[in-house]
Structures are given as structure tokens and as C-alpha cells.
């Protein structure tokens, strides 16, 4: 027998950990004034920064060499150690790479930009044009540590609802408008050979994006809360929502119970993918794309039809309006409102308090928010990926590789939505196909979104800066609460039992400190509403 070099797993992990730590503590932040260190938290798809043109322009503008530190995996873990060690590069780029909660603890590491706005004309102009961004970036005490951005073109919601029209036509059914109608349609999908490939059992009537243990997000059945008129934001998050200026949490709301009951009814009848609670995102996506021209999934949620079902199948699906919980209900339907997080991305760029060359760093921050630079950061280099028609007109070019969808393309050739941008309101941009598609597929949801009063029915999470004590309390109680709530969500849908267990469950969630959290959110909201 030949023994391989013996290195115990633990030793290996420790060794790997050490190299990782060593990797992020190259302490030259107070070093060379001719080099700026910029950390960028980018998407795993994104190619190296050295392949892009606009970073070279940034170097010219700032008159220094830029050393890019590119991180695309395990950011949360790296961040904690980096901040706790107090070792921050000159600039940190990445939407919400540093969250408001981080700023609560580590604000001393970052430069207060409130008194540098004269050196940042673009940022100053952005704040003048979009006062909500100014209030979003400014703490109650007046400091500005992180500059947000404005993306303008994103639709009001990220989650769109789709059903396979081809299947409906084949079975002679209409697009459902209520929960009951949906149920009937899904049963037909299950029992008939809806996709026409001769196999009656390979159809998955309903599927959704994997729900994590930390709450809800995009493309998840939390949007069905809209059917019973409960307004949510960002896909649902930890369940906190605002309704007529009052904060609540849907996890203990009777309307949430109704959604669960409906979903259990569907699951019990075999209408929901058996893997819905255990699959990971890539499996969920692969199933949605079917095989060749044969679709597998009947009803689902996604960003665009092409993104969700692949270019081959996209035209089989139609975008739908929100369903009514019951025919003829008087409660107006709502949806999930995501425009804040999409069009007003927060904390896009921060500066170290101990930067070696503040003037150059300020120049770079300012340059990011330049009109053309913003377009390049978001969609790729001018001339290569974006065409300049005139000073007021630009066109995002389709992917050079026909097999790649525009969204993937964008994330590949530039840092895209992770970068600091201000897309001006007074220019014309011919959008890429995916964004066009998303805007178009938001149409059926427009009415429901219009039923939500942005000031009173959407909690302005992005615009509120909390104190560290409050963030800690929220985090602690939420972790305990979600441990119960997310478990029950999965259990009730797959096994049922919501009716019998509801009372005890609400008690349990309340015991985790829910009311305290609701009060905290309410207090911050009231303060925020006063300043509007």
C-alpha cells in the first residue's frame, strides 16, 4: 500500500484558513500614495478587472495606479475578519458589500464624506437630483459613509409570475385568475400529458426558488400574500411589512396562514415539485429549462421568461397578473415592491478613513458617478458593449456570443449591478433584451403594484440607518424566530397541520421577541416618515 502524504483534514482547514487570513491582511493601506487599493465584491461570473477598459480610464482620471482586489466568494466571512482586524483598502466597491449593520459597528474605519462633497461634484449633483438618496446615505447624526446609486430602468418588481400558455392551449384551458382556478389548471397539468411528449408523469405543475433558513426572497411563494392584499417588499425577507404606516410581520398574520393552507392543498394533491424544499438553486433552474423543446414546469416565478425557462422555452410562457384569493373579493391585490433595492442600490462605495491618497480616492469615487462611466460600469465598455449614438443617446449592444443571454453577458463583461452608478434621467438608452423583457413582463402586475402606496405600504429598509444595539437585538430575535418559522413553513406545506398548530406557533414566535422587533422597526419608520 502506498500512503499519501498525511495531512489531517483539520490541519488542512487550519492551514487553508491561515493562508486566507494572510491573503487579506497585506497591510499597505497607509503605504504607497501612488497606488490605490480598491476591493471589489463582484459576481462569480465576472471576468478579471484587467480585461475591462473603464478601470484604466479611472487610473487616468485619478492619476495613480489602481490595485484591484477582486473577491467573489465567501465575502461574508472575509468581511468579518477584515473589518475586525481594522484593515480596510482605500476603497470598497460593491452594492451593500458593507451593510448598514456593519457601519453600526465599524463606522470609525471609514471616511465621512459629508464634508468632502465639494470634491465630489457628481455625487453632489446626484443628491440634488434624487433627494431620497441623500436621506438614504445620511445618518441621523449627519455623516455620509457610503454612497448609494441610481439605476433608473429596473422594473418595480423583480419577481414575475409565469404560466405555460402552450400547455393551457393544448388542454383547452384559460389563464387562471383565482387560487381555485389555478388549482384546477395545475391538476390538469399533472394528470394530462400537458407537454405532449407522451409521458403523463414528467410534468411539474408548480415550482419555486429554494427558500433558505434565513427568510424569504425573490421568486418564492411569498408573493401569494399579494392575493390576500398583504403588501411585501424585496420578496418578503424576515417577514416584516408595512401597511398603512403600521409595521407588522406576516409570519404571524392570519393571511399568511391562508397562503400556507392553499399551498398545502396543492402539495397534498401532488401539484408542487417534490424537491421544492430540498433542491438547490441550480437544480431548480435546470428543471425549469426542461429538455430541448419539452417544458417541465407549468407555473412558476422568475426574473424574466428567458432567464427562468431558457431561451428555447421562453415563448411557451406568458406573464400573469396576481391571482385573487377568491373570485369577487373586495380586498385589492398587491405584489412585492422591489424598486427601492433595485433602482436605489445602497452602499455602493466607501472610502477608508486612513487612505494613503485621499485626493485620488475622491477622484475615483466621483468618476464612478460620471454619466458615461456609469453606463460602462453597468453594461460594459463604450464602443465594445455599449454604443454611443450621440451625447444623449446610447445603445446597449446584444451579446457578441449568441448563446449567452444578455443578463449573463452583462455580469461577465463588467461588474454590472455591483458597481457604483448614476444612470441619468435625461438620456435615452436602448436597453438590453432582458431588461426590456422584465419591464414588459411587469405589465400584468402594474395594477397590483399601484394598489400599494409607496410611502405607507413599503417599508423603507434601504433608507434607514439603525444603531448597533438595535441591529443586534433584531438579528438575535430574528435568528430565533426564523428557526421556528421557516421550519413550520416547510412542514405545514409538505405535511399540513397549520390549523392545529397555529395558536401555539404564534405564541412561540412572539416568545422569540417579535413584538420588540416590530416596535423597533416602527420607531425607526416613524422617525423616517417625519423627515419626509
Amino acid at each position, binding site marked *: 500500500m502506498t500512503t499519501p502524504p498525511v495531512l489531517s483534514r483539520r490541519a488542512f482547514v487550519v492551514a487553508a484558513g491561515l493562508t486566507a487570513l494572510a491573503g487579506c491582511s497585506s497591510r499597505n493601506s497607509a503605504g504607497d500614495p501612488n497606488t490605490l487599493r480598491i476591493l471589489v465584491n463582484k459576481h462569480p461570473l465576472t471576468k478579471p478587472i484587467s480585461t475591462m477598459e473603464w478601470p484604466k480610464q479611472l487610473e487616468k482620471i485619478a492619476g495613480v495606479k489602481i490595485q484591484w482586489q477582486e473577491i467573489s466568494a465567501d465575502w461574508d*466571512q472575509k468581511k468579518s475578519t477584515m473589518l475586525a482586524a481594522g484593515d480596510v483598502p482605500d476603497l470598497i466597491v460593491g452594492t451593500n458589500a458593507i451593510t448598514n449593520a456593519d457601519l453600526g459597528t465599524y463606522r470609525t474605519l471609514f471616511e465621512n464624506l459629508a464634508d468632502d462633497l465639494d470634491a465630489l461634484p457628481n455625487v453632489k449633483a446626484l443628491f440634488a437630483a434624487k433627494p431620497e438618496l441623500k436621506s438614504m446615505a445620511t445618518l441621523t447624526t449627519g455623516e455620509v459613509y457610503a454612497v448609494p446609486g441610481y439605476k433608473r430602468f429596473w422594473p418595480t418588481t423583480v419577481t414575475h409570475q409565469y404560466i405555460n400558455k402552450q400547455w393551457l392551449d393544448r388542454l383547452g384551458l384559460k389563464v387562471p385568475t383565482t387560487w381555485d382556478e389555478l388549482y384546477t389548471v395545475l391538476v390538469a397539468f399533472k394528470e394530462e400529458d400537458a407537454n405532449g411528449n407522451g409521458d403523463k408523469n414528467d410534468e411539474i405543475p408548480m415550482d419555486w426558488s429554494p427558500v*433558505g433558513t434565513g427568510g424569504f426572497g425573490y421568486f418564492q411563494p411569498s408573493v401569494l400574500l399579494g392575493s390576500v392584499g398583504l403588501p411585501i417588499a424585496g420578496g418578503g425577507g424576515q417577514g416584516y411589512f408595512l401597511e398603512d404606516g403600521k409595521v407588522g410581520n406576516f409570519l404571524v398574520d392570519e393571511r399568511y396562514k391562508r397562503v400556507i393552507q392553499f399551498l398545502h392543498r396543492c402539495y397534498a394533491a401532488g401539484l408542487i415539485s417534490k424537491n421544492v424544499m430540498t433542491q438547490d438553486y441550480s437544480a431548480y433552474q435546470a428543471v425549469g429549462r426542461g429538455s430541448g423543446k419539452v417544458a417541465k414546469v407549468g407555473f412558476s416565478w422568475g426574473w424574466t421568461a428567458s432567464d427562468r425557462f431558457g431561451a428555447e422555452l421562453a415563448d411557451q410562457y406568458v406573464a400573469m397578473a396576481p391571482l385573487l384569493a377568491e373570485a369577487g373579493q373586495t380586498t385589492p391585490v398587491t405584489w412585492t415592491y422591489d424598486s427601492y433595492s433595485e433602482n436605489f442600490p445602497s452602499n455602493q462605495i466607501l472610502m477608508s478613513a486612513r487612505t494613503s491618497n485621499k485626493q485620488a480616492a475622491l477622484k475615483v469615487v466621483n468618476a464612478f458617478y460620471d454619466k458615461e462611466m456609469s453606463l460602462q460600469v453597468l453594461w460594459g465598455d463604450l464602443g465594445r458593449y455599449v454604443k454611443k449614438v450621440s451625447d444623449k443617446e446610447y445603445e446597449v449592444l446584444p451579446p457578441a456570443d449568441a448563446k449567452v443571454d444578455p443578463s449573463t453577458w452583462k455580469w461577465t463583461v463588467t461588474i454590472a449591478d455591483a458597481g457604483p452608478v448614476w444612470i441619468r434621467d435625461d438620456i435615452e438608452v436602448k436597453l438590453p433584451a432582458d431588461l426590456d423583457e422584465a419591464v414588459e413582463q411587469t405589465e400584468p402586475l402594474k395594477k397590483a403594484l399601484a394598489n400599494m402606496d409607496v410611502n405607507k405600504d413599503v417599508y423603507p429598509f434601504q433608507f434607514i440607518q439603525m444603531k448597533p444595539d438595535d441591529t443586534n437585538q433584531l438579528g438575535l430575535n430574528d435568528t430565533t424566530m426564523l428557526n421556528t418559522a421557516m421550519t413550520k413553513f416547510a412542514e405545514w406545506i409538505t405535511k399540513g397541520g397549520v390549523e392545529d398548530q397555529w395558536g401555539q406557533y404564534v405564541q412561540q414566535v412572539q416568545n422569540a421577541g417579535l413584538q420588540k422587533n416590530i416596535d423597533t422597526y416602527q420607531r425607526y419608520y416613524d422617525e423616517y416618515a417625519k423627515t419626509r
Partner: protein
Amino acid sequence: MAESLVAARKPARKPVTGARRPGAGRHVRRYWQLWLMVLPAVGFVAVFMYVPMYGIQLAFREFDFAAGLTGGDWAGLKYFRQFFDSPLFWPLLKNTFVIAFTTLVVGFVAPILLALMINQIAGGRRKRVMQTATYLPHFISIVVVVGMLQAFLNPSTGLLTRALAPFGLDGVNFLGDTAAFVPVYVISDVWQHCGWNSIIYLAALSRVDPQLYEAAKVDGANRLQLIRHVDVPSIVPTMVILLILTMGGVLNTGFEKVWLMQNNLNLPVSEVIATYVYKIGIFSTQFSYATAIGLFNTVINFAFLIAANAIARRVSNWSLW
């Protein structure tokens, strides 16, 4: 790793030396090469295990970034109380214990059985093939192993799910069922590490004097009796030392694997101390609280280590100290 938030680790094995007798100088002169060989290990433990222990005080202080690790206000036992009062305390403890002990017991017995079995295989070539085949999975990354579990146990298309269906195990969701989580975790763990862990026993078995076997055979012992009276006694010391060492890490359940296998369906049994510390410490950046929980974990591990050693000394006259 949640563990790295906690500076304290199980104490490392000290080199076993005789008690200090007069003539220590002579001892060093005589054995200086051995001391030199052990020096890097001692240095490693000192620098990476003992020095960072000053960070333990974080568990008793308010973490205040501006004041540094040791500069926060004294909070006393506040964070320990917070943990003990948390509704999650008992479930976390129970889950951690269940997973840890099942893994410990099964994971301790399996390599011994495997080693005894391989040892009985006649023919050097077959033996080597068998050994290699059993220890190869050890080198598969945890992420990949969990990925394999996801694929094989997929409720509708999984290979194993379909293979088990005729045996009345139809319709069990192995990935989500709370009753299936621990078995799946432990069985896959044994499959992965059993071969690797049996190497040390095989080494011990290879040292057995062949004369013993011959003497036993002359006395008319059959194969099972050979194992029982010759093989097993010869690996007892190794077994005891390994048992004591694993006891010291009994609550450090494999964080990565649990974390990757976790989903909303099995959360009631899969939320363990390590994953909770990760969620609280890393995602909600509450370092003091996470350190307190980690320290509590370490103290329990330490108690187990002492207890295991005491029992071993009683029962088998073999012990670490």
C-alpha cells in the same frame, strides 16, 4: 469556521516524558534529538492555540471595535445568560449531542471492524485493492459529498431513493425528513472516513507477532477466536488513545457538512451549536455572544476529555495522562 472565533481549543498532546527526576540535564543531553523533533509541534501549538487564548475574554466583554479586542466594557456572564435563556438553547444542545454521539459511536466502531476484516483477507493484492477502495472517499471534498447526497437521495429522481423503494422505504424524503437526517449524516460520514481511520488500526495489527497466531492455531483456535483473543487485545491501546482524543472534540460536529445539508425541513434536528454560532457571529456580527457560546462548547468538550481519560485509566490501564 465558527470555531476560529474561539481561541480556545482542546489542549494538544504533550510529549510524554518521565516526571522530572534529578538529572534532567543528563536527560536532555541524551535525548536532545527527540526534543528537537518535537519542537516545531510545540511551537505551533503555543503560537496558534495558546497565544490566541487571550481572546477568550471577549466572551465576558462587550465587543467594541474601536477599543480593540480586549478593550470593551466588562459584561460578566451576560452573554452566557443570554445563551442559556434563549429558547434555542435546549434544542441546540440536544441536536449537537445526538449528532455528535451517533457519529462518535458508529464512527469509532466501524473502522475497527473494517481493519479486522481487511486484516483477515488473504492475498496481498486483494488486501491492497480493498484498502485503497475504502479510504479513497476520504479525499472527496465535503461540498462534493453533500452534492452527491443531494443527487442520490433526490426524492423523485435519486438513485438510492429508487433503489430503496421496493423495500418499503417509498416516499421518504431523505433530504428533508427529520428522522432521516442523522442516519444520512452518520452513514455518509462513516462511508467517507471509515477506510482512512482504519489505517492506524491496520498498522497496529501488522505489528502482531506471527508466532502468536501460530500458537493460537496450534491450540485449536478458529478464525473468530483468533480475532477475539489475538487481534483485539493488540489494538486496545490504540483504540483507547483515539477514543480519548475524539472525545475531546465530541461537540465539534462537522460544521461544513451540517451547514450544507441544512434546509427548512430538517432544521429542527440540524441546527447545531456550530451553525448557530455561524449565523449569530458571522451574519449578525455579534462576536461577544458567539465567543461565549464557543467557549461554553469548549468547556463541555474539555469535561468530556477529562472524563474519558479517567474512565480509560480505570478500565484499561491505558490513558493519556
